[in-house]
């Protein structure tokens, strides 16, 4: 029988939530790395017992942890993230030049076919790769060397590379996103990159349709249709049908098109999920009601999903890496909040229930479907 393992990163440690395919009774394991920020944890698609975790703190910096037994035991591996060459500068919040400095790893994306290969998206924005299980890291510096780096600027959370999507049908193609630079694509395994932001419009930059400078919050893709991308931007939910060559807005009837995560149903490539947030200055759900919105039409037409979610006095946020889907049938949808709740819907979003209510603020949620 299939089971699921939910990997939860929080402000004060990591938690592993496990259930059988019914997804109604849960075992909670943790905290691992208690007291440390766990920005992201993710398992290898090629070996579900191989996990990677980004552990960091303001005091002691960055640590990368690796497990080879599904999270029972962990080993600290390499944390030397050295930019290739002279890092140069990017824009600071006030538009002045600011030197590139490594701060933390936001996202770890294991290779689709090699448990020892893993990508790391870091702040200040850059992409690193390890081919030895995280022991050593090398920057894919063609991204920062694209030439637009001096025009990138940090979002409120820092200048982070937070999204890494690997195209399963086209080895060498990869999509990444940076707050606040935008989305980029490589077709040659990271040697060269180009911005893919045509169609985005951002009123908070001097040229709203500039090539770079957009605060992309998250991109999602269904593996069966890697040319179709969905984006939650700072404001606006967007869609591309040509691998990022152009984007169009699909915010439709959402109560707010500001938000952070976006996900695609594991069996229905046109079914997508977002969590509308009232505004970029408030960072909580409209009307104090936590609602996931689902579109079964790939955007434009959205329905609110609220059964089992708090509908009064709820002022939490759901961060960009804190929503995930499993691959069971029916598809399970998971989200974690800054209030420490992790919710699951075992029926594609119709009904929700808390798995846990009182964790530290949730930074990331990933799920593994294990047969």
């Amino acid at each position, binding site marked *: 029988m299939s089971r699921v393992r939910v990997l939860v990163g929080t402000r004060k440690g990591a938690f592993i939530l496990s259930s059988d395919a019914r997804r109604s009774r849960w075992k909670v394991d943790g905290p691992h790395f208690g007291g440390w920020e766990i920005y992201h944890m993710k398992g290898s698609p090629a070996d579900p017992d191989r996990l990677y975790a980004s552990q960091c703190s*303001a*005091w*002691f910096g960055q*640590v990368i942890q690796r497990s080879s037994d599904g999270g029972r035991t962990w080993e*600290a591996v390499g*944390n030397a993230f*050295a930019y290739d060459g002279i890092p140069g500068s990017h824009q600071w919040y006030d538009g002045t030049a600011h030197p590139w400095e490594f701060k933390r790893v936001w996202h770890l994306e294991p290779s689709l076919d090699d448990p020892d290969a893993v990508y790391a998206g870091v702040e200040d924005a850059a992409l690193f790769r390890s081919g030895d299980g995280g022991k050593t890291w090398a920057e894919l510096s063609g991204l920062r060397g694209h030439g637009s780096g001096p025009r990138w600027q940090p979002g409120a959370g820092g200048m982070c590379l937070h999204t890494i999507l690997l195209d399963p049908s086209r080895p060498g193609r990869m999509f990444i996103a940076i707050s606040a630079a935008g989305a980029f694509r490589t077709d040659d395994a990271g040697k060269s990159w180009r911005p893919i932001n045509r169609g985005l419009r951002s009123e908070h930059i001097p040229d709203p349709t500039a090539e770079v400078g957009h605060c992309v919050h998250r991109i999602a893709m269904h593996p069966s249709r890697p040319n179709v991308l969905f984006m939650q931007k700072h404001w606006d939910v967007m869609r591309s049908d040509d691998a990022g060559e152009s984007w169009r807005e699909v915010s439709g009837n959402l109560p707010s098109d500001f938000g952070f995560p976006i996900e695609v149903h594991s069996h229905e490539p046109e079914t997508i999920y977002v969590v509308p947030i009232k505004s970029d200055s408030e960072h909580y759900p409209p009307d104090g009601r936590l609602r996931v919105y689902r579109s079964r039409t790939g955007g434009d037409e959205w329905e609110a999903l609220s059964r089992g979610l708090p509908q009064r006095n709820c002022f939490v946020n759901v961060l960009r890496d804190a929503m995930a889907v499993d691959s069971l049938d029916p598809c399970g949808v998971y989200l974690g909040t800054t209030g420490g709740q992790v919710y699951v819907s075992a029926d594609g979003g119709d009904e929700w229930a808390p798995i846990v209510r009182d964790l530290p603020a949730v930074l990331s949620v990933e799920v593994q479907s294990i047969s």
Partner: protein
Amino acid sequence: MIQVVLPAHLRTLAGVSGAVAVEAVGQATQCSVIDAIEASYPMLAGTIRDRATKRRRAFVRFFACGEDLSHESPDSPLPDAVAAGREPLLIIGAIAGG
């Protein structure tokens, strides 16, 4: 042997309890002691000082013999009592809340 007391999070990361004892190569300085710590406990590399610049991380302090040594040169000799192992070098996480 030089006695070093690590902050709790770094003791957990290194898998040790209590003080650790290290042998500095050459004169006992902040730099040579941290070199020895990182050689014995590679998982601590980068957690006390920056890997590239060797500068003390901003929220880490060094105390010994009732003195704050954080702003001493990393290559200055540590107090004789620390070098002789009679007093520990205390590596402290700054009180910063959170």
